[in-house]
């Protein structure tokens, strides 16, 4: 391909930013780090947009079907003839779409951070980490084989870890980054085993051949994978489920979601980039990438669908009770990713039945826009109030007019109110669910009503309601200590912070009108976007109801919400405590893992393993005590030993060893 260089540059420019700023940033570029990184990323984003444009409108389509294009590839590790790990770049519709999303959001976050982290001591380090993350994420979406994807998958995990723990002097941030890393790493173990199973049966790591060999019933690879079984479940299903566990860990699906709310300890722009728009959808991307193979195993598809819908509903309920605004957004992210996941899970291949796939990718795209907007808006609020808790906020619409408007647009978008972006994608998802699985559909309907409620609860608590008294004298910092805002200049943070908000707000308004079915479908053929007005009535009505309830409860300061919470006492408390999942994990680790398995392992280690080592050392010591007297310092004694030795050798050579 003639444009291989351009495509290779897309991930390599952020990598360059990482290397330069990581090595020399703190000494030489601490002031200019933001400008350098932003410039490099602007170029990268330009190239990504150009690549996506070229792919979608020039060379991507052959006879009306979008092709997978291998841009470049070279063999990295050759195991045997025809079996190797390659490094390369592949472009297909979802990759092109992800390129656009990742570079766009990353660029806006770079710009936003210029103002948000101004004055931060480790400014250059921050931009270096952002560069590393962007590089890994772009590498992940461009990967041409599953092993390369795994490498970048771990790299995004590492950069997420680094960025969550960016304020490493804050114990909660340190705990959060460790939690995120350990939980996702644990899930990645499943992913790795899944990769090995799938590529063992397919005999290749490359996506195109892997999908080809595992989806055609004439292929012997597929038949072996289906016939080989373990505990009554076919190897194919095992492989896919294990791969999905990896994806669920990254995408914060129940029960591996516990790291995501805590990950909000990172700087808010990072939450917008990594924990809302890009990295957390990697799991969705992974399932979408292997979608044709998932199709071969209905049980795996069911697991995807039901995990998705359960996580969506579960997270939405928790989101209604949280008071930390970033945690509300985190649970809402989890809920929306649940939407994408179950949309994939209910989808079939080809034409109309493949609507779920298109809808899922569409929602991924629009969600990235409005969720990044919500996080950046929340960042502006936190920057202003110096607190994360919505109890410290209220009445902010007068102080933060631009943030207010853009936040409102994002809330409308995520609630699915026409004509904002979320409406279109969510309607498609609901329609796809309705066509395939009614149970999932009704759960999704409830969830979307809840979504509208908790988003507007958030919106009204921040921007309406009554301001708590300290808001009047904002000149002095107040609220939770250890907040992440820098400097105490009042106002909205200037052009650098408002420009991304406005751009994303515009995107949230118009992204819904993109005819997504033309670009991303299961079979690469265009799919006419479906929109039935009558079908939309129920979801929109539910969303409006949710909003109205929120208006009633939170627009003015009243105790209706508290009364409702009191009447739902037990349930409310359980939801507020996140259904005790964290406690359950702690119980399992402390009592079962540490208490039962760990105790015996420690005993074995102390007594058997250490005992063996100590016995060796003691034995050697005692032996040397005994033989050290041979070295007496008496010259003539040495001479006798020498004589005895010579005589011994003489006897040996003359009589015994003839």
């Amino acid at each position, binding site marked *: 391909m003639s444009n291989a260089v351009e495509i290779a540059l897309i991930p390599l420019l952020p990598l360059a930013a990482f290397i330069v700023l990581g090595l020399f940033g703190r000494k030489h570029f601490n002031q200019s780090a933001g400008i350098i990184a932003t410039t490099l990323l602007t170029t990268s984003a330009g190239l990504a947009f150009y690549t996506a444009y070229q792919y979608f409108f020039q060379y991507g389509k052959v006879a009306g079907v979008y092709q997978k294009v291998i841009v470049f590839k070279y063999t990295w590790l050759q195991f045997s003839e025809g079996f190797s790990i390659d490094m390369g770049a592949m472009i297909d519709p979802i990759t092109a779409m992800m390129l656009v999303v990742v570079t766009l959001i990353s660029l806006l976050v770079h710009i936003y951070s210029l103002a948000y982290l101004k004055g931060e001591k480790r400014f250059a380090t921050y931009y270096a980490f952002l560069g590393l993350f962007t590089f890994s994420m772009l590498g992940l979406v461009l990967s041409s084989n599953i092993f390369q994807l795994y490498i970048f998958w771990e790299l995004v995990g590492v950069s997420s870890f680094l960025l969550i723990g960016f304020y490493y002097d804050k114990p909660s941030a340190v705990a959060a980054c460790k939690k995120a890393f350990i939980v996702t790493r644990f899930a990645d173990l499943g992913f790795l085993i899944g990769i090995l199973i799938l590529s063992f049966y397919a005999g290749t790591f490359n996506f195109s051949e892997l999908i080809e060999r595992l989806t055609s019933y004439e292929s012997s690879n597929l038949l072996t994978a289906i016939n080989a079984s373990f505990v009554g479940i076919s190897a194919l299903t095992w492989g896919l489920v294990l791969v999905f566990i990896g994806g669920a860990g990254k995408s914060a699906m129940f029960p591996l979601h516990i790291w995501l709310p805590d990950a909000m300890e990172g700087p808010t722009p990072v939450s917008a980039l990594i924990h809302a728009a890009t990295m957390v959808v990697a799991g969705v991307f992974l399932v979408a990438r292997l979608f044709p193979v998932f199709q071969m195993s209905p049980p795996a598809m069911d697991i995807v669908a039901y995990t998705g819908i359960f996580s969506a509903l579960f997270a939405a309920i928790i989101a209604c009770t949280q008071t930390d605004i970033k945690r509300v957004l985190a649970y809402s992210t989890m809920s929306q990713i649940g939407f994408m996941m179950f949309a994939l899970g209910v989808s079939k291949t080809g034409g109309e039945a493949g609507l779920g796939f298109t809808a899922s990718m569409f929602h991924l795209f629009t969600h990235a826009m409005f969720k990044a907007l919500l996080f950046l808006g929340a960042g502006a609020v936190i920057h202003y109030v110096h607190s994360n808790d919505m109890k410290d906020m209220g009445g902010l619409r007068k102080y933060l007019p631009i943030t207010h408007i853009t936040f409102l647009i994002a809330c409308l978008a995520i609630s699915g109110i026409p004509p904002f972006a979320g409406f279109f994608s969510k309607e498609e998802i609901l329609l796809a669910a309705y066509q395939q699985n009614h149970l999932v559909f009704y759960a999704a309907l409830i969830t979307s009503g809840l979504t509208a409620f908790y988003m507007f609860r958030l919106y009204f608590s921040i921007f309406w309601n009554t301001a708590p008294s300290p808001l009047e004298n904002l000149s002095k910092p107040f609220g939770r200590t250890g907040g992440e805002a820098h400097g105490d200049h009042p106002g909205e943070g200037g052009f650098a912070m408002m420009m991304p908000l406005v751009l994303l707000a515009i995107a949230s308004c118009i992204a819904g009108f993109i005819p997504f079915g033309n670009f991303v479908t299961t079979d690469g053929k265009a799919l006419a976007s479906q929109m039935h007005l009558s079908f939309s009535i129920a979801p929109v009505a539910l969303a409006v109801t949710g909003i109205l309830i929120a208006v009633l409860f939170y627009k003015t300061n009243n105790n209706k919400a508290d009364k409702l919470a009191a009447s739902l006492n037990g349930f409310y408390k359980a939801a507020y405590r996140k259904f005790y999942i964290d406690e359950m994990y702690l119980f399992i680790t402390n009592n079962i893992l540490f208490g039962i398995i760990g105790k015996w392992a420690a005993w074995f280690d102390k007594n058997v393993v250490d005992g063996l080592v100590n016995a060796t050392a003691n034995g050697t010591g005692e032996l040397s005590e005994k033989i050290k007297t041979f070295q007496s*310092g008496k010259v003539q004694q040495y*001479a006798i030993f020498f004589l005895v030795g010579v005589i011994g050798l003489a006897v040996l050579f003359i009589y015994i060893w003839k």
Partner: protein
Amino acid sequence: MLLLPGLYHLLFISTALFFIGMFGFFTRKNLITMLMSVELILNSVNLNFIAFNKYLWPNRLDGVFFTIFVIAIAAAEAAVAIAIIINLYRSHQSIDVAQTEEMKY
């Protein structure tokens, strides 16, 4: 009657010299005496070389050459040994091996 010494006479003398040297080396405590004992051992070997050369291959000179080598090496060895003995005397005011036993475990 003239009694010519045969091979066995020479070998007997050589063996006697060797064991005298060995005995001296193991029993004397004086380093110079020990050095002399070593010289006795070397000379017993020299005598062996000469005797075998004369009685087994009378028309060759290998044994004689070897003896000359051994004498040369022994001279060098004596020089080194005496240097060591002098140094030892300087540090210990004695050349008695029984008093220089601190180089041990």
